[in-house]
């Protein structure tokens, strides 16, 4: 017997076409264009702006011998691990668990505060953080000096920590909301039964909560890893400095393409970053499939 579908196959294809066209125009075509640009030595000024040459894979070879690339890659990985995986997902999980099965008022208050950090426009957020961390006039240093602590030049002495904390603060809301919603899907009877037999909190988490929300955790990790990998906002805080210590891959691309006008080289780096993103996505997807079976 043929399986009954809500709509016919033809209709499905027809309905997908507009979306596919949009994806082609705004995603696939630019990606191919970037690949093509990355194989030229095109610049935004100078003679190569008018008459770029095809250079094949020269740009790619140069990327892999460019110390700034490895610097940016290292910082990006640290940033993703610190702010996305440990920071946003970890803190989001803790917050979700702490407010789980608590009064509605508490949950609403905590969520509102965390979401506030998420919905403020980026430029405003960057300004607030600069005002908070500035060496001479920042709120943090002024407060610390009341208690007799020495002023710390946060951006200079702890550059990576600064952007990791910033991005954790900025993005935790998403993970927290997702985990809170996931926790709601656990049938209350599971935990109530565990309560009755007096299971420890850790066992409840490990044996009841975790298995039930595993797939949500993977979804969250995929999304925030990719987002964090491509985030540009720290540029507004540090400009990639001091001395390139917070130069994430997107900032490295920006610097080459739009500050030094090497658009060909910048495109080549973009292609590499695109591939890294793909690898990350594939890694997470296979991992989540394996766990499910």
């Amino acid at each position, binding site marked *: 017997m043929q399986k009954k579908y809500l709509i016919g196959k033809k209709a499905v294809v027809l309905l997908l076409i507009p979306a596919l066209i949009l994806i082609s125009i705004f995603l696939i075509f630019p990606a191919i264009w970037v690949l093509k640009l990355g194989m030229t030595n095109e*610049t*935004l*000024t*100078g*003679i190569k*702006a*008018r008459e770029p040459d095809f250079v094949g894979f020269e740009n790619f070879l140069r990327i892999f011998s460019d110390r700034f690339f490895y610097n940016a890659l290292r910082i990006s990985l640290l940033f993703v691990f610190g702010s996305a995986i440990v920071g946003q997902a970890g803190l989001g999980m803790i917050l979700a668990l702490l407010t789980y099965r608590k009064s509605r008022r508490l949950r609403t208050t905590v969520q509102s505060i965390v979401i506030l950090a998420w919905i403020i426009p980026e430029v405003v957020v960057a300004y607030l953080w600069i005002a908070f961390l500035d*060496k001479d006039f920042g709120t943090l240093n002024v407060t610390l000096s009341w208690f007799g602590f020495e002023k710390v*030049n946060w*951006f*200079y002495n702890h550059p990576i920590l600064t952007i990791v904390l910033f991005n954790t603060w900025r993005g935790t809301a998403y993970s927290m909301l997702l985990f809170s919603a996931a926790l709601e899907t656990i049938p209350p009877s599971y935990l109530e039964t565990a309560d009755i037999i007096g299971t420890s909190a850790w066992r409840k988490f490990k044996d009841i909560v975790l298995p039930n929300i595993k797939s949500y955790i993977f979804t969250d990790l995929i999304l925030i890893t990719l987002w964090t990998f491509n985030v540009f906002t720290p540029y507004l*805080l*540090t*400009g990639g*400095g*001091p*001395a390139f210590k917070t130069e994430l891959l997107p900032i490295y691309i920006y610097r080459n393409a*739009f*500050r*030094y*006008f090497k658009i060909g080289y910048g495109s080549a780096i973009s292609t590499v970053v695109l591939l890294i993103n793909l690898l990350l996505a594939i890694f997470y997807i296979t991992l989540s499939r394996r766990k499910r079976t």
Partner: protein
Amino acid sequence: MKRWICLLIILALAVFVVAQKVTIIANAIKGGKNTQVVEWFEKFLPDIEKELGIQVELIQTGIKDEDFKARIVLDIKGGGGADILWIDGFWVPEFVEAGYLRPIDDILESIPAWKYYFDSMKAMGSYKGKTYLVPASTDVRMIYYNKELFKKAGIPIPWQPKSWDDIIKTARIIKEKLPGVIPLQINAGTEMGEATTMQGFFMVLLGAGGNLYDWDSGKWIVNSSALRDTLNFYKQIYVDEKLGDAQLQVSPGAREKTFDLFRQEKIAMYVEGTWMYTSVLNPNNPSWGFPDRDERIGWAAMPGRGRPGDPEFVSISGGTGFAVNPNTKNIKLVAEVLKRILYVEPQLSYFMLKPFVSPRSDLADSCWTVNKDKFIAETSRALVKYTTFRPAFPVYPEISFQAQLLTERVVTKQMTIEQALKDFAAEVTRIVGKQNVIEKP
């Protein structure tokens, strides 16, 4: 019927005429960077509008020079942009190579003031035999010092160092007598951008008798004792003796922060251009101006290293000017507007707001006679004879970045001088090719 068509045509023409607009872009914003430029335009643009019966709009920006450049490049490459571009003269070669500027020799023929421009200034605005830029102003570079801080530290005024050692000695006194005050800032690092190359690196390098470019052989210099001594001087200031604040140099918004600290009298000596005095410290600048600038802030010529054969004093000049966008729709109107900007009257009123070293002979004396600007008069008289220009070839910005990187690596202790120089030589060689570099003793 005919009457109707006539009416329609007239109406269409009227709409066309009303819609006619010439736009000017400058890196200036009211109340901020180059606020005087905006005030100046506000003063005389309405007259031009009335006379020509068109709209003339000033697009304000007031951002970092590098960002301003990116904006203009992307505007023009995208087929748009303002008609008249007030840009830095050293961008001309790379812009022309990319086809971003319109040759303006035909316009200049109809501009009576053009014959008064000095040849050196005309050269700044031209490339491969054609003219692309009308210089608006030029400048010189020097050391600014805070007289109040000097008095407190017991240093006699007027102060004029004769060698690098004199600068270091003065800085040591300030460090000892005035804790909390940064004795000396000489720009370093990539955050400061071209301000590092011009106000910092070149001012030191020239003093050791060096250069980035060898004008005789037409090659880029990748290693020399002058280069080494320049870096040693940086190291002595920022690393060995901590007479300057290297963290400040490489922190985000370094230039604005430096102006802030100079305004708060927390920096005693700072090497900068004419612009610093006439615009940043200008009493009418709401952010950084000193009401008593002329009494409080002194200047001294930047000395050479101080060994026999070194130049006595050094300075390097840049300049900005008006260029024309090739995408412009109505070149005739642009020419008319440009012509009126260059009339003597508006030029003098600009000088009144923001004094500058004039690029043309009919105005060069105005600082002596018409407006009596002591600062411009004295600095021009003292420094123009020593000044030089940067090698503004299309490849220059890339080399300039390498020079900024060189200073950054030394002042932040990322590399030793030898390592940094080795990297610099390798990168410059990669950029211009082996046949275009040279090593000097």
